[in-house]
């Protein structure tokens, strides 16, 4: 699925948060959105997913809007758990689509196994640990086999083991054809995961490049400073 932003601007209380942004995403690869705090990374993801309205500009999708939204999924930085069991959380997106019960059961058990929560299916999801919640949120997003998966800092505050497990799940999803767009503050993770990098600064796309080229030698001074760990004002 291709997503195209044209002259996209988001304003809140008169202040410009994002834009103008022109961006076209089409390949089933892993796009990492980098940038300092307040650069507009989360807003960009929310706009692409359609949960944030544009103040001006346009988001064009290659499929009809309703269909495209059903084929996208979003994982939030703080995982949102339904106040239900792990099983019910995994089943929820499929129930919304009216999927048959035997298929739901099969998929739920498959994904619980994959994220290591097979023994915790009847546990109350809000009582899981932070890492378990994030893995559950990711599995709940992937259970519909989305065309596009947006992730907003999915590994923030997670330990190395949980981070590695999530990265493995993401790479598997990408190999099965899911296009991944993800923000992160973890440059190590960006190097491990990225096919391409979108570097945001002051709400605008400052640089966009193939990951290898970006990490080897960014075009702009600001991106070089960011990679060095300098503070960008």
């Amino acid at each position: 699925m291709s997503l195209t932003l044209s002259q996209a601007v988001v304003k809140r209380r008169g202040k410009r948060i994002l834009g103008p942004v022109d961006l076209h995403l089409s390949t089933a690869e892993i796009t990492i959105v980098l940038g300092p705090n307040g650069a507009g990374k989360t807003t960009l993801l929310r706009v692409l997913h359609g949960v944030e309205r544009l103040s001006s500009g346009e988001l064009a999708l290659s499929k009809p809007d309703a269909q495209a939204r059903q084929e996208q999924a979003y994982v939030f930085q703080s995982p949102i758990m339904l106040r239900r069991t792990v099983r019910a959380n995994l089943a929820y997106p499929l129930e919304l689509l009216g999927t048959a019960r035997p298929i739901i059961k099969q998929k739920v058990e498959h994904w619980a196994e994959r994220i290591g929560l097979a023994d915790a299916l009847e546990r109350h999801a809000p009582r899981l640990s932070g890492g378990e919640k994030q893995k559950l949120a990711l599995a709940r997003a992937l259970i519909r086999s989305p065309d596009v998966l947006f992730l907003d800092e999915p590994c923030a505050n997670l330990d190395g083991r949980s981070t590695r497990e999530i990265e493995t799940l993401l790479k598997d999803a990408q190999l099965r054809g899911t296009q991944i767009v993800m923000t992160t503050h973890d440059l190590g993770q960006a190097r491990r995961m990225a096919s391409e990098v979108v570097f945001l600064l002051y709400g605008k796309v400052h640089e966009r490049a193939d990951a290898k080229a970006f990490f080897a030698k960014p075009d702009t001074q600001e991106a070089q400073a960011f990679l060095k760990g300098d503070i960008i004002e």
Partner: protein
Amino acid sequence: MNDIWAGLEAAFWLIVTLDADLVEITLRSLQVSLSALVVASLIALPFGTWLAIRRFRYRRTAIAVLNALMGLPPVVVGLIVYLLLSRSGPFGVFGLLFTPSAMIVAQVIIITPLIASITHQAMRELWAEYHDLLISLSTTKRQRIMTLIWDGRRALLTAALAGFGRAIGEVGAIMIVGGNIDHATRVLTTAIALETGKGDFALALGLGFVLIALALAVNILIHTLSRTEQEGRW
């Protein structure tokens, strides 16, 4: 202190001997309050949830009015319902005054804002928590409301029980519209008021203890049936 002991003793004997009058007014109290609770919940639970997720022009005003209505004086409600149901009133033709139906109407008016307001508060918090997820999953409005009602059922149960507590303990309105007629509209609270007026404090206290026990029993029964405290269910 003697009155309290005498009241406890009276309550004990009323219950042990299954006093016919006590059973009758207890069952009538339950009938009136539970009927009012069902009707009020059918109105208030969906309305409170709708108010939590719907944005419209006078929403804040509507919430403020709803909260203000929680403090409706029962005597005033009773008076208004009395005037509406009296023979010269607009609904006099139905002949409901001094019947349990009139008492149910008055209690519905008193407890609906309370249940709706507690529902709104609980659903507003849950909606804030779920908003991004439900939007991102492209849920329909109906799916959102059903999800909130299901996941917020514990809070909704609390709202309903708060309404029941207010209804079962209410006296002012049902005294006016029911008339406290023996074997017709007498309930526990109006009987307590009557016995206190007559100076029979022991019996009044006895009835009071029965009323408290009844309210507790209904709460415990509902919690037990809905398994609210069991891990994994909530």
